[in-house]
C-alpha cells in the first residue's frame, strides 16, 4: 500500500514543477482561455456564493422586515444573536436535533451504507436487486417520501394498524409526540442516507484494484484487516466525500421535517429556523440571518478541519 502512495507522489512532483516553469510563457490566446476558465467560475462563485454569504452575515446584525429598500434596514449590533440565545426556545431543540442527526448518520447510517456496499461488492446472488432496492429511497422525491412515511406513522396509519389501535386518542403518537418524533424522522432520514452512502462507496470500491485484495488474502489477512488496511485507505477520495456528505446532509436537514409538520413541535432544525424567519409570513430577516450565520459557522468548522487534514497529508 505504501508503495502505491509513494509512486503517486513521485509522479505528482514533476508535474507540479513543469506547471510552474511554464507559467511565465503563456501566449495571448492561452491567457484568454485560462482567464475565461478560471475567471468566469471565480466571478460566478463570488457572486452567487460569497456575496450572499457576506450579506447574510451583515444582515444578521440588523432589524429588517424584508420589505422595501436598504433604507429600512436598521443596524442593531449583536441584538439578534443575544435574542436567539436568550429567548428562542426553538434554538436549543434545533441544535440538539442537528447534533443527533449528525451522530445517527455518522455512527449508524453511514457505517451501514458502507457495510452494504462492501457486501454488494462481493457479487452475492441477486446483487442487482439489493442494489436497486437500497437505492430506491433516493429516487423517490422527498415530498413523496414524506407522504409515504406519514401514512405509516400517523396515528391512524399502517404501523398503528399493525399494533391494532388506530384510535386517535389511545394509539401511539409517532409524529405528534415531541419526545418521539425526532427518532422517527431520523429513521426515515437514515433510510435514505444508507442507500446514498452505499452507492457512493460501491462506485469507489469498484475502482479498487482486485489484485490488492487478492494479495492481502494471500498474505493471510482477515477480511476485516483487509477492509481496514487495504480497501479503506485506497478509497481516501471517496471517504472525504462521504464524510463531507454526511456532515452536510445532517446539518442542513430541512425538507423531511418541513414536510411532516413544518419543522415545529420537537422537529426544529437550524435550517427550519432560517426558513421560518426569512420566508414565512413574518419576515424577520435579522433573526433568520443570525440562524443562517450560526449554521454556516457550524458547517464550516468540521469540514474545514477534515479537508485540511486530508489534503495536507496528501500533499506532503
Amino acid at each position, binding site marked *: 500500500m505504501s508503495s502505491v502512495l509513494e509512486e503517486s507522489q513521485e509522479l505528482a512532483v514533476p508535474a507540479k514543477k513543469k506547471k510552474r516553469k511554464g507559467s511565465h510563457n503563456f501566449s495571448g490566446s492561452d491567457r484568454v482561455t485560462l482567464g475565461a476558465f478560471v475567471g468566469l467560475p471565480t466571478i460566478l462563485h463570488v457572486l452567487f456564493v460569497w456575496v450572499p454569504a457576506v450579506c447574510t452575515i451583515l444582515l444578521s446584525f440588523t*432589524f429588517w*422586515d*424584508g*420589505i*422595501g429598500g436598504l433604507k429600512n434596514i*436598521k443596524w442593531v449590533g449583536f441584538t439578534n444573536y443575544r*435574542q436567539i440565545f*436568550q*429567548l*428562542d*426556545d*426553538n434554538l436549543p431543540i434545533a441544535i440538539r436535533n442537528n447534533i443527533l442527526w449528525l451522530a445517527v448518520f455518522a455512527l449508524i447510517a453511514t457505517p451501514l451504507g458502507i457495510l452494504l456496499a462492501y457486501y454488494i461488492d462481493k457479487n452475492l446472488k441477486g446483487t442487482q436487486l439489493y442494489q436497486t432496492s437500497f437505492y430506491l429511497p433516493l429516487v423517490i422525491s422527498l415530498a413523496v417520501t414524506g407522504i409515504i412515511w406519514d401514512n405509516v406513522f*400517523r*396515528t391512524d396509519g399502517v404501523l398503528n394498524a399493525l399494533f391494532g389501535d388506530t*384510535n*386517535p*386518542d*389511545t394509539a401511539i*403518537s409517532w*409524529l*405528534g*409526540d*415531541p419526545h418521539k418524533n425526532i427518532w422517527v424522522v431520523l429513521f426515515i432520514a437514515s433510510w435514505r442516507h444508507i442507500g446514498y452512502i452505499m452507492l457512493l462507496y460501491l462506485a469507489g470500491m469498484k475502482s479498487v484494484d482486485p489484485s490488492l485484495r487478492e494479495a492481502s488474502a494471500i498474505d493471510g489477512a482477515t477480511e476485516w484487516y483487509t477492509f481496514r488496511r487495504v480497501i479503506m485507505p485506497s478509497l481516501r477520495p471517496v471517504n472525504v466525500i462521504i464524510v463531507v456528505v454526511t456532515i452536510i446532509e445532517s446539518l442542513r436537514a430541512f425538507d423531511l421535517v418541513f414536510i411532516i*409538520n*413544518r419543522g*415545529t*413541535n420537537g422537529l426544529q432544525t437550524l435550517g427550519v429556523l432560517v426558513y*421560518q*424567519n426569512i*420566508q*414565512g*409570513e*413574518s*419576515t*424577520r430577516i*435579522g433573526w433568520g440571518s443570525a440562524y443562517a450565520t450560526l449554521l454556516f459557522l457550524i458547517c464550516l468548522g468540521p469540514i474545514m478541519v477534515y479537508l485540511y487534514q486530508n489534503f495536507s497529508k496528501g500533499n506532503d
Partner: protein
Amino acid sequence: MKEIITENEVSRRSVLKGAAAGAAALTVGGVGASTLGASAASAATYNVSFGSNNTNGPGPEQDAAWTAAAKAEGINVALNAVDHNNFQNNINSYLQGTPDNVFDWFSGYRMQFFAEKGLLTPIDDLWKKIGSNYTAGFTGASTGLDGKKYLVPTDWYPWAIHYRKSVWKKAGVNPASIKTIADLINACKVFKSKGLVPIAQADKGGWEAQGVFDIINMRTNGFKFHMDLTAGRASWTDPRVQKVFANWKSLLPYMSAHPLDLGDQDAGKLVIQKKAAMIIMGSFTSGLYSKADYPDLALIPFPIIAPANGTDSIDAPIDGVLASTSAASNMAGSEALMEFIGSTKFSGIIQAISPGLFANKNSSVPSDPFIQSQVKLVNSTKHVAQFFDRDSRPDFAGPIFGPAIQKFLTGGDPKAIASNLKAQWDALPPA
C-alpha cells in the same frame, strides 16, 4: 397602532351585525334582483391574473365555477391556486415578486400592514361604485390606515362549537342545556363515557388551537383584554393570562390526546365520522360535510365562563380580495374582476356549491338552518374579533405564539410559556 385597533373594534362589530340583519331583512322580503350585472353589458374583454388560496374542501370546485362565470362576462381569469397554508407563508415574497393582479386575503391587521408597506393598490374608484353594497362596518374593515379602500370583502364565518345533532341526541345531551363551562364539562363526561372523544382538537399547523385560546380568553377576561393582549397593550405576564390557561386545562382531559397529530381537516373528520362529539372551529368546517351529512351539522356558542362577559364576543374573520402592485398596470381589468367577485352573482355561484355568509348585503342568506344559526350567533354577539393571527403581528402569531400553544398542549408549564411570550413580544423589532 393603539387607535387603529380600537377603531376597528367598533367597525368590525357593527359590520357583521349590520350585514347579518340587512341580509336577513332581504331574505324576508324576497331577494331583490341583483343589479350588479349591469357592468357586464360593456363589451370589453379583460385578462386578469388571480391568486387563489382557496384549495381546501370545495375550494377548487368553487374557483372553477366562478372563473367560468367571469369568462362569460368578458373577464378571462388566469387562476393561480396555491395551497392555503403555503400561500400564507409565502405572502411576503409573493407580493414583492410578480404577484397576480388580484388575490385572496383577509381583513384586519394583515391587510393594513401590506397597505402601509405599499404592496397593495388602492381601489377607491371601484368603491365609489360598489360602496352601497356594504354596511359601514364592512366598509371600515376594507379601509387601510391611510383612509383608502383596499379590500373587496367577500365572505365571513364565525368560530363556535360545531357538532352533529344525531351524535348528541344519541348520547342524550341537549345542546340547549350547555350554558356554562361546567355544563360543557358535564356533557364531555357523558360523551367520554360513551367512548367518544368529547372535543376534537387540532394543532398540527400551529394555528388551529389559537381559536380556542381566543374564545377562552374572551369568555374569561372579556373582549377588551383580548384585543389589548393581541395588540401588545396588555402584558403576557398579566395574571389574567394564567386564568385562560387554567380554564383551558380544565377542558384538556376531554380534548384529543394528541392534537399535534391532527390538522384542522383531520379533526373535523373525526366529528363527521362520529368518533368525536364536537370541535371548536370556524364554520368553514362545514365544507368537509357531504350533502347527506350537512343537515346534521349544528353549532352552539362557546359557553359562559365569567358571568360578567356572558357570551358577548366571538371570532368572525372576514375574507376578501385585494389588488396587488401589479394591478396598477391592469387597473380596468382588475377592477372589473374585483367588482365581479363582490357581486351577488359571485356569491350565488359559491353558495350553490357550499353555503356561506357573504359581505355584500344584497347576497341571499341561504335558508338552511346551519347558515341561519351562524347569522343568529353573530346577531347575539356584542363584539367580533378577527382571529389571533389576524389581530396580532404576523411575526408574533406565527413563529412565536403558535409554537407556545403547541408547547402548552404537550404539557408545557403555562407560567414559563407566558413569561417567554412576554420576553419575545418585548424583543420584536418595532413594527
